[in-house]
């Protein structure tokens, strides 16, 4: 019985520790992502993700971000040149490619974008970025 309790407690501790480790990781992604966003994205997409007229789409369409999540890394790395429906409006200006951003940078900035401006979509790791980038069209 004592062993059993001890075992359960150990599991609880492990889960607890893991949770805070992932929370720390997430916070790290968010704060680095914010720096990258300000340096590279804010120019067109705005400080609050509001976009710029019809030249640059807002980043506040949570449904779009969710549905196209596996394409987002491709948009950043390779640029985008296809019409996109965002908040029911069509945006078709070209987005430049950010070739110099590494997987980890892309992951961090995406975590920032998808968890700011009214979005709340959780973690997105750099391993996932690497996978998603292999499937770019």
């Amino acid at each position: 019985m004592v062993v059993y309790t001890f075992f359960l407690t150990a599991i609880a501790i492990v889960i607890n520790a893991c949770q805070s480790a992932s929370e720390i990781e997430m916070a790290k992604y968010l704060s680095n992502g914010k720096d990258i966003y300000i340096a590279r994205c804010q120019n067109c997409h705005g400080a609050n993700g509001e976009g710029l007229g019809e030249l640059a789409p807002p980043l506040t369409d949570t449904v779009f971000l969710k549905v196209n999540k596996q394409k987002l890394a491709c948009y950043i790395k390779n640029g985008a040149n296809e019409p996109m429906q965002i908040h029911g409006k069509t945006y078709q200006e070209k987005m430049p490619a950010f070739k110099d951003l590494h997987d980890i940078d892309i992951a961090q900035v995406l975590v920032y974008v998808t968890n700011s401006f009214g979005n709340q979509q959780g973690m997105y790791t750099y391993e996932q970025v690497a996978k998603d980038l292999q499937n770019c069209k």
Partner: protein
Amino acid sequence: MKKIILYAAFGMLLFGAACTQEKKLPIYGDREAKITKDANGNEKIDTVYKTIPNFKFLNQDSVEVTQDAFNNKIYVADFFFTSCTTICPVMHRNMKTIYDKYKGNQNVMFLSHTIDFKYDKPSVLKKYAQKLGVDVSQWQFLYGDKAAVYGLAEKDYLVAVQEDNAATDGYVHQGWLVLVDKHKRIRGAYDGTKTEEVEKLKSDMDILLAEKD
């Protein structure tokens, strides 16, 4: 005793009034003195300020525009190009906040010269203006050949522009928003990428609008 306080109050009022004289913006550029004679033959010295010379460009509606469009108005001018991804979006985001403030004001205009003489034909400028949400006569987007636009930028507006194949988008230029008065004189230049400088421009525009000739 009461009298002294009263005098002191008057004195302070006078002093205060003297200090609140209206603020004036500087006039930029080279100037020269010119001696003129009036009808009676008396000599008079005039200061001749540098002004923006006349120009003739096509706007976003493919209509020829000269300086006449800006007669008796103050205006904010900048140099940009539509495919610019570096400083232009933030410049025009900021410039649009100025436009929003003076929207419909008959005394204020906006002028964006493109420096991309290869691609930014009037139809491209039109689309850009529409997408920025400012396709109005109050904001003119002007297209001209390289020599005319680059000359105007560097000699008259004092903004550096250059074609550069090594640059990200093929051109480099400075992000100044230049404030020009009713007499075509430059009264200020502000970094269009910085919000605090753009705020300064807005308050300077109010000063310039209040200025008597």
